């Protein structure tokens, strides 16, 4: 009898396994894998006549021969890297302050204060910067009031405005992993570094930063990806001059209805983003699974 029930349990268990496996396979294949395969196929075709398509690399050659596309792509990549580095530089001292200088209640309070803006939609945050930076905005008003400018100053619609917005939007994704890894560093290691005669800079470079590397890396990867794929901030803060690659994708798909070209752009952006994530992981010898979880 026990044998029979054992067998029954096993079949039930196997059935349970297939029932658990089916939804995830459906989800990943129907919403992630097949759509991307289809996008690759669409990017490799060319409209010959109405509803007639032929195989062609034309959409990719168009990307490399049209300077506007190519420049926008490089510009987006470079600005994203700069934004990531700046976010890291700004966030690191603050994270260190929260994780190592403060203790007890002020520390929790300040950490929550850091998270607070990110409970609010990115749209609202960007809108805040628009109100601050525009010609009739607060900063322009303040400059005039202090006599630093004698007429309204337009600070929107340039690269600095885009950069400020991108850094602001990404801050959370840098501060949280940094605070978490810095928090796990034992203070006595820092003290030991000083006792052995290290200067602040030495201790920072050979103890704190190596320990924080996993946090730095996962922060940078997430910030870079979010920046590269951002649409809202460049469009609203950069206006017509923003030249962001996601805007090109949007234009091809929605405005020009040239899906083949848009799909090719999408694939190129995906390749760039994966490549940089992969490089980042290789350089610091981190595993993808660990960084993401």
């Amino acid at each position, binding site marked *: 009898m026990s044998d029979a029930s054992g067998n029954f*349990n096993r079949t039930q*268990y196997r059935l*349970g*396994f297939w029932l*658990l*496996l089916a*939804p*995830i396979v459906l*989800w990943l294949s129907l*919403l*992630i*894998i097949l*759509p991307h395969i*289809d*996008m690759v196929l669409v990017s490799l075709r060319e409209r010959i006549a109405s509803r007639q398509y032929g195989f062609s690399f034309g959409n990719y050659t168009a990307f490399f021969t049209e300077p506007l596309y190519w420049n926008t792509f490089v510009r987006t990549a470079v600005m994203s890297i700069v934004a990531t580095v700046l976010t890291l530089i*700004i966030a690191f*001292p*603050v994270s260190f302050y929260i994780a*190592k*200088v403060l203790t007890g209640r002020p520390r929790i309070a*300040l950490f929550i*204060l*850091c998270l*607070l803006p990110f*409970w*609010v*939609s*990115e*749209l*609202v945050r960007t*809108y805040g910067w628009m*109100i*601050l930076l*525009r010609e*009739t*905005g*607060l900063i322009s008003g303040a400059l005039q009031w202090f006599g630093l400018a004698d007429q309204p100053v337009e600070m929107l619609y340039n690269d600095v405005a885009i950069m400020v917005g991108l850094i*602001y939007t990404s801050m959370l994704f840098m501060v949280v992993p940094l605070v978490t890894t810095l928090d796990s560093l034992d*203070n006595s290691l*820092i*003290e030991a570094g*000083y006792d052995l005669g290290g200067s602040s800079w030495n201790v920072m470079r050979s103890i704190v930063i190596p320990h924080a590397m996993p946090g730095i890396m996962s922060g940078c990867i997430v910030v870079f*990806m979010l920046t590269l*794929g951002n*649409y*809202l901030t460049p469009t*609203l803060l950069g206006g017509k001059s923003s030249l962001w690659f*996601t805007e090109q*994708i949007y234009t091809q798909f*929605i405005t020009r209805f040239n*899906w083949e070209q848009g*799909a090719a752009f*999408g694939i190129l*952006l*995906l390749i760039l*983003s994966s490549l940089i994530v992969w490089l980042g992981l290789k350089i610091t010898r981190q595993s*993808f*699974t660990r960084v*993401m*979880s």
Partner: protein
Amino acid sequence: MIPSIPSSRFFRVSYLSYVTLFFIFLITPLVVVAAFSFNDALFPSLPWNGFTWDWYLGKGEPRLGLFHDDALLDSIGVSVQVAIVTTMASLALATCNAFLFEREQFPGKNFLYVLMLMPLVIPGVILGVSILVFSSTVANWFEVQFGYEIEALRPGLVLVTLGQFAFLTTIATLVISARLRKFDITQEEAAMNLGASRLTAIATVTLPFLKPALFGAGVVAFLMSFENFNTTLMLVGSDAPLTIAMFDRLREGSTPVLNAVSVLLMVGSACLALISLFVQRPAKP
């Protein structure tokens, strides 16, 4: 550098002022948005003309307040619907995934896990575009083969929901798996020794244990769905969720009614944050 290491007064003061400046940088845009929702002027800009409730309660143009602006209210309704469906669906699948990855051993598990993480590294715009392309392919194929048009596969709320579901499930899976990992499986075995079937044991012992994680993941999924822009933008049809409606108005240049919506969003998020903090707080004996 750290409190136990002596440092110069100059260093401490400048460090503190840097951190203070950082928090001013963090808070100012939100304060500004909130403040201008009460400014008695047609545009959210200086000068300050005095306090008004018009942007919440105003009854007609040009001072149509939030609570009488049907277009905006409708879009909030659309967003809430999408967010509820997406949250429920992603929680259900994420719970299955958590059990699959924490309890089962099978060949290709690591590969599947990496695949499961993929939606996190795909930019939202591209996720949206790929689903748009694929659903059109399927819809066109059906139309040619069977002469039947599947409306749901054309841009609209169904696709928006699917697109958001595609990446929110990953986030929910990570949260729920982390909690399930801490579960002591002997509790479940004890329930089964006492005569419960496996499903009963999971329903009465394991799921209650997972409740804080389910709730936390649910709040995060709801908020991320409500605030999602990139994926939604590519898949949206004629019914615009709030973020899309706000974006369109922002580009045109709008009245401070947008500030009023923003304040509403801040209050809503703050409430959700408070509730989730309260629920996830460890129970006191």
